[in-house]
């Protein structure tokens, strides 16, 4: 029985690990830079580790560096975190079905839903013999541990880390590009959504600038998806019919 338990976990962890390698590349760089920044503002590795374990979100943790060095403003902190990470609401909507029936693991799966972990878990399907819940939990846990490990290391050894080679964070861009491409390869049914996502976000970026375009982009995407519901629905229905044939 106990042997079986280890086997199930080991099998799930083994299947999960390769999928987390692109995130490992990205989080190594992003985590180290975050740690270096925290150290440069006088924060201890312990505080850095605490933030990375409990918040686990790159964009808000970066924004928080400024807040932590300013005056104590609890309500603004909460609102800022909610606004900066509002895009996660879309991830939850996308994962409602996939995370159904996963029991207590679901609580952690939702907690650990960063941009990267959501993306990988959304497209990843475990092999048949692997426990689905464990598989997604291991992907989430590996990603989380990379972030915590490298942000803490960055804070500990900040000054020793060479910073003259840049560009490692492109692992994240490439990861999202690949996943977007996979959506297109899945069939023409995803094309309108991809155009709405890219076009709506690009338009919002042009109008509002890099600092605060995400929420306008989300609103615009929801509006466009509502306007084009009929044609998009019929594309999905047709794809389903063809899948059944």
């Amino acid at each position, binding site marked *: 029985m106990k042997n079986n338990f280890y086997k199930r976990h080991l099998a799930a962890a083994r299947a999960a690990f390769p999928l987390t390698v692109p995130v490992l590349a990205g989080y190594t760089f992003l985590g180290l830079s975050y740690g270096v920044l925290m150290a440069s503002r006088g924060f201890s590795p312990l505080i850095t580790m605490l933030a990375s374990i409990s918040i686990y979100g790159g964009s808000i943790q970066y924004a928080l560096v400024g807040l932590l060095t300013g005056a104590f403003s609890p309500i603004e902190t909460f609102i800022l975190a909610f606004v900066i990470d509002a895009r996660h609401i879309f991830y939850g*909507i996308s994962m409602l079905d996939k995370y159904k*029936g996963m029991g207590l693991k679901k609580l952690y799966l939702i907690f650990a839903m960063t941009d990267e972990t959501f993306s990988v878990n959304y497209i990843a399907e475990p092999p048949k013999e692997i426990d689905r819940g464990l598989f997604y939990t291991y992907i989430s846990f590996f990603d989380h541990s990379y972030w915590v490990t490298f942000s803490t290391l960055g804070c500990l050894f900040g000054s020793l880390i060479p910073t003259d080679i840049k560009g490692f964070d492109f692992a994240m861009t490439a990861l999202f590009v690949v996943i977007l491409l996979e959506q297109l390869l899945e069939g023409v049914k995803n094309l309108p959504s991809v155009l709405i996502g890219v076009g709506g976000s690009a338009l919002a970026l042009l109008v509002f600038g890099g600092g605060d375009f995400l929420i306008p982009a989300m609103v615009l995407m929801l509006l466009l998806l509502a306007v084009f519901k009929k044609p998009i629905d019929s594309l999905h229905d047709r794809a389903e019919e063809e899948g059944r044939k």
Partner: protein
Amino acid sequence: MSGFEIIVTIALAAIGTAATRYLPFIVFNSNKPTPKYLVYLGKALPPAVFGMLVVYCLKALSFTDVSGYLPELLAIALTVGVHLAFRRMLVSVAAGMAAYILLVNFIFI
């Protein structure tokens, strides 16, 4: 800020972030059948979200100078080409990242 205030600030940022992640699961309780419009969003939203994430990663592009956009465009083109050829996520990401690192460190300095 005192040590206590730092801890409270981190805790509130953690709660704010967690709220965005848990909200849909709290609002749309999975024991009831999922509302129709949400079923539609579940299918139509994810491809749009990945489009948004790509734009989000490229938000700092600038078109005043070739070094502000060409490395990204070239590396993305390579990522797409490699992925179409091999369809292996790891290989495509590694190729794109390697190309980008070479481009920004040695060519477009």
